[in-house]
């Protein structure tokens, strides 16, 4: 019964989406008519439509790498700063993954938290002796904590989990599979919003996350492994690839200021230059997203800034990559710079007159694209949240679109916004550091030899 309903629903969505595409096709000469009158505006519109449709169509063909029995050693690294509430759950989900225990180690790094995070980690350590607990002694910033975790890790594959993220039990098995291909330097999993049912904001982010991962990362992955951001909430790196880049990444500066946020994008960027970065949709994690507008906008601004910073690197080498991926990527860098002007132009300059490409045409065109975006979610997921995709597009078109330039103007402000931590770069002082490696009889086995003394 439910299956039949689902089938009917899917068929209805396909018909609806086809009708919208038909509508877009019918308006094509309205757009071309605008081309003569308003070339910049029209070519932007055409390019965006082709870009979005191209992404969505390609994404339909995305398939994750199946489990071929590849089982490398894995280190799961959890950097934590003032996370006393969630840290135990995160550690539990990492230790509970369905992956051979002798091939897994979990490293929790306390980045000088001022709350009870370290106490919670110690509680966890008491409960699960195989946990590797590290306390940096003071606050070094997220990169410092991650770097220390990397240096102490012994697995071939390093899996990063944000302290507000939770791995699905089979996520590690799934995320290591693409590493069987020697060219792959990093893999990003699929993130779901854990608190998606809280309010419209988190529902909207659930739809947004889904398409950002499944569509954007999915297509980038298909185009010769060119994912530009292996998001921190669920990402894995080949240790041998990361180690040589570690120092440059840990102490990255930009405009004379330490590059604090955007650690995930920065690391991906350095790896992508030489290696492949792929998306593995079967490796699922859940992450907690901001529930209030203030925190949400700060997070978005932070992402925008790191996107701006890293895009300056991306444009330099991406032309050597898969040409279609390069076109998509350069377009995705160009669009946000043009978008605010296009929005202002569309609303400000077109209020008058029934010209083709007038305000109504612009609004209905945007609406059609937002609807397609949302229908994609409706087609894939049956939780009734799909229409929040349109909420996201509305918010994007009215507010977020202007963050590109806001980000440029406030580039030197490197505060996190969602975190109280902001620090200058510093080498980690090993003397002030507390390291509690796995105790006897537990932890990673490497080349058949238990690390730590045998029981």
């Amino acid at each position, binding site marked *: 019964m439910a299956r039949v309903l689902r089938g009917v629903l899917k068929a209805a*969505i396909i018909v609806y989406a086809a009708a919208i595409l038909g509508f877009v096709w019918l308006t094509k000469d309205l757009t071309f008519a605008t081309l003569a009158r308003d070339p910049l505006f029209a070519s932007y519109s055409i390019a965006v439509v082709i870009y979005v449709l191209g992404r969505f169509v390609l994404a339909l063909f995305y398939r994750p790498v199946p489990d071929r029995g590849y089982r490398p050693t894995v280190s799961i690294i959890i950097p934590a700063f003032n996370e006393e509430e969630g840290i135990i759950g995160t550690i539990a989900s990492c*230790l*509970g993954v369905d992956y051979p225990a002798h091939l897994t180690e979990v490293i929790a790094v306390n980045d000088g938290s001022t709350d009870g995070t370290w106490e919670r980690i110690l509680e966890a350590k008491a409960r699960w002796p195989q946990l590797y607990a590290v306390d940096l002694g003071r606050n070094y910033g997220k990169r410092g904590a991650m770097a220390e975790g990397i240096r102490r890790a012994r697995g071939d594959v390093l899996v990063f989990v944000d302290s507000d993220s939770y791995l699905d039990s089979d996520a590690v098995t799934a995320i290591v599979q693409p590493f069987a291909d020697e060219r792959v330097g990093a893999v990003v999993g699929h993130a779901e919003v854990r608190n998606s049912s809280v309010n419209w904001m988190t529902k909207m982010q659930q739809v947004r996350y889904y398409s950002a991962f499944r569509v954007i990362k999915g297509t980038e992955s298909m185009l010769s492994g060119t994912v530009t951001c292996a998001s921190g909430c669920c990402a894995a790196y080949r240790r041998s690839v990361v180690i040589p880049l570690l120092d440059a990444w840990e102490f990255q500066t930009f405009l004379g200021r330490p590059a604090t946020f955007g650690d995930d994008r920065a690391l991906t960027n350095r790896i992508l230059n030489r290696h492949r970065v792929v998306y593995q949709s079967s490796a699922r994690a859940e992450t907690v997203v901001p529930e209030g507008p203030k925190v949400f906008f700060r997070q978005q601004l932070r992402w925008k800034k790191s996107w701006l910073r890293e895009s300056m690197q991306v444009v330099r080498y991406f032309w050597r990559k898969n040409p279609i991926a390069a076109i998509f990527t350069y377009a995705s860098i160009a669009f946000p710079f043009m978008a605010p002007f296009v929005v202002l132009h569309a609303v400000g300059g077109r209020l008058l007159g*029934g010209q083709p490409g007038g305000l*109504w045409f612009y609004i209905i065109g945007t609406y059609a694209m937002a609807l397609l975006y949302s229908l994609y979610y409706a087609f894939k997921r049956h939780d009734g949240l799909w229409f929040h995709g349109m909420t996201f597009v509305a918010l994007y078109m009215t507010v977020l679109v202007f963050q590109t330039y806001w980000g440029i103007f406030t580039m030197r402000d490197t505060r996190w916004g969602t975190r109280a931590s902001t620090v200058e770069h510093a080498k980690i002082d090993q003397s002030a550091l507390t390291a509690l490696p796995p105790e006897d009889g537990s932890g990673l086995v490497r080349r058949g030899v238990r690390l730590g003394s045998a029981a």
Partner: protein
Amino acid sequence: MTAPVSFAAPVATRSQIRQLVVGLVALPLTLLPFVGYANLTPEGRLVRDRAVVAISPPTLPRLSEALRQAAASTAPRYEGAVMALAYHGIGSASDGEGGFVISPTRFGEHLATLRAGGMNTVTAAEVAAAFTGGPALPPNAVMLSFDDGRADAMMFADPLLKEAGMAATMFVISGAASEPGIYYASWDKIEGYARSGRWDIQSHTAASHRDHESEGAGSLPKLTSLAPGESLDDYRARVRADLGDASAAIEEHIGRRPVAFAYPFGAYGADRSNDPAIIDVVREEVGREHAVAFQQDDQETVPLLTPDQDRLRLRRLEVQNWSGLELLQRIDRAGRPEQTTDGAPSPAELALPAIGDPPPPGTASGPPSTSTTLAGAVNRTGDTRRTLPGATSPPVPAGIVPPQAIPPPPPPPVTVAPPPAPVLPITAPPVVTTRPPQPVPPTTSPPTTACRPAGKSGKCAGGSG
């Protein structure tokens, strides 16, 4: 090891079910903005019309046997002349030009009825050739023409013309076609239509299809008035340049120089001008570029066109939302101005309200004042070859044939009026209008046309009884 943390989907909670229902309800609601766009904005209506044509192109109606016979008997018969019909838009009459826009269904009915009546369509180019010593026109020639190069007209008319095997003439504003929008077809569309052989592309000026602020007389058509400070020589140069531009553009895109011209707004300088010399200047300039030119003033007395008329001021009949049969009657009546003038109106005329007169209030549902059928049936036996007004043929006898005389039962799908209904005389003298007539409200049929073929039953839609 502790129990593995499971993230498998738990049993759906009530809020999840509520969310699912909201999602399902939202799905159809998201159509609303499209519906609003397609009905409330001009460009949306065009897109909707385009979708309608793409999904189910308009087709010619199948006329009932009775209607075909009525058409055959109503249609005038003539040779060596042509009736020029002027259409504007086809589609949804919601752009405030109700009188200039007829539905595709109505246009299809016109074509089917013209065909049933044995009328032959000719293009403006063929008229121009025939009127300048070229090949003669076929008998019962009708020139279907559209002004302005409107996208909707070509989109809806083309499949119908194709099905009917007919051709039409489009007088394009070349400037508008070069700068296409939602309203005017672009050159590549027009070129496509022209290649089909169904469309003759002729000139409607390049950039003079508009009013401008004239010298001392307010807003007047640009083609027939002097601009402030403009001398007559300047004016002549301006008109010459504009007509030349239009011809050059058409030649560039269609491959043939236009030979026919339609005056924008039908204005050729007789009125809506601010200089008495203009009427001659514009005629000369039009004549430099074109063999024939069309206007549409006085709609009461539009004659059949013959080569002995002023080739540069040929007259067209503005077609409105008439039934097919009424169109034939208009053509018939228009060809007989002598009857209007001698004070003995023909039955056909009696049957028809003066164009431009709105239907008398209450008549739409009230008793029909007269019977169109009768008028149409009168003297149209096919034997009366009409030659032209001013020619030697005697006036057509006008005898009233009672409705029962109309061939076969089922009653023809025109008003079956109580026989010898008191004829309502046309009280108002024909109004000579140079402006296009008032739109006929589409929902209100004129009394004589209260009947239109509804579906294929041939039943009277407008009632009567």
